[in-house]
């Protein structure tokens, strides 16, 4: 075997690797400015929809269409998430078998803290979402974790969001390169095209909010998580952020990730951060 091509190939590969490793951190440092990203993101939407106030975005498609807005006003009088909210309140108050409760796992007894989630845990080096924190709370107290998608998890997060209504999203990115990397990773996930339809999250929720996708009016990405969890008439029930992410992925005919996988946690981190300052409006109702 002639060694020379092999060596040449190896040196090319090595050269590429050094190039990449040299280019990446520099590139990341250039682009990673979350505060500027959030500002640009919010500006994009307020310019696209000049009539709307920033806080209006938390009501998603209901703010974009007059007809739907009237429906929404009527719906909010008797919201379909009421049953879930009540269930969440009962679940939250009911102690675990060991006598402790959800309130023991959260600041301020879990009341009015929704706007601080997800946060970056510097010990673990990862993003912690509210849904994850709830299941960890259960497991730490010897209870089985809940499904991330609906029912009980939706009820609990509905109650926690309800007690935080009106409080602006307050997501912090600590001075930790891993936190910045999580934000960037979430951003990349958001703008990457995938699935057989070759859609990114942004194709619908940045490029085309307010447009119809069949009978649905696409929601703007700005403020989309403020209303979570939601009662969707289409689902005939409640759904969590995990359900929203996985169903978006499968609707573009992609393969959804596991709920609360690192990518989804980073995505939630990114999306929540760019909606900083917008009030929590969850639980919400959507067509």
């Amino acid at each position: 075997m002639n060694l020379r091509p092999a060596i040449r190939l190896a040196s090319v590969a090595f050269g590429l690797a050094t190039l990449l490793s040299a280019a990446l951190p520099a590139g990341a440092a250039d682009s990673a400015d979350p505060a500027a990203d959030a500002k640009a993101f919010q500006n994009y939407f307020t310019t696209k929809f000049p009539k709307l106030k920033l806080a209006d975005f938390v009501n998603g498609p209901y703010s974009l269409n007059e007809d739907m807005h009237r429906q929404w006003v009527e719906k909010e009088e008797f919201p379909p998430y009421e049953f879930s909210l009540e269930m969440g309140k009962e679940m939250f108050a009911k102690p675990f078998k060991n006598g402790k409760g959800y309130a023991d796992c959260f600041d301020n007894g879990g009341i009015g803290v929704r706007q601080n989630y997800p946060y970056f845990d510097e010990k673990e080096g990862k993003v912690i979402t509210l849904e994850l924190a709830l299941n960890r709370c259960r497991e730490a107290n010897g209870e089985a974790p809940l499904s991330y998608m609906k029912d009980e998890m939706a009820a609990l997060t509905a109650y926690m969001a309800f007690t935080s209504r009106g409080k602006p999203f307050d997501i912090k990115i600590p001075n930790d390169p891993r936190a910045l990397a999580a934000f960037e990773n979430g951003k990349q996930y958001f703008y990457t095209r995938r699935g057989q339809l070759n859609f990114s999250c942004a194709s619908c929720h940045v490029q085309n909010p307010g447009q119809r996708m069949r009978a649905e009016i696409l929601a703007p990405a700005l403020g989309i998580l403020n209303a979570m969890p939601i009662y969707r008439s289409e689902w005939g029930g409640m759904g969590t952020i995990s359900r929203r992410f996985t169903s978006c992925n499968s609707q573009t005919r992609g393969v959804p990730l596991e709920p609360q996988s690192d990518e989804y946690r980073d995505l939630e981190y990114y999306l929540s951060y760019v909606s900083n300052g917008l009030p929590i409006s969850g639980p919400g109702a959507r067509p």
Partner: protein
Amino acid sequence: MASTIRVRATATGDTTEVQALIQHPMDSGFVKDAKGNLIPPHFIQQLAFECDGKTVFLADWGTAVSKDPYIKFSFKGGNKGDDLKISWVDNKGASDTTTAKIQ
């Protein structure tokens, strides 16, 4: 378990407007579950609203009504503080009743 019925009734002038939300699966009997088995029909057959012992609204429902139905109507009469009794019976014989005060 908490009541499956939510109701709000407001009297304005000589009419009372009633809104109600009922928690019920309203299975049509034509839907299959994840394993491919038919989910048997399970739906509210009769829904009644009574004000002071008088029926003001009676509905015979079938499978075409959606899950967790919402209903809104108004009727002549009814004063603030009157009792409004709401009850439903489904095809499996289950039922629920609640009484609300007209506001």
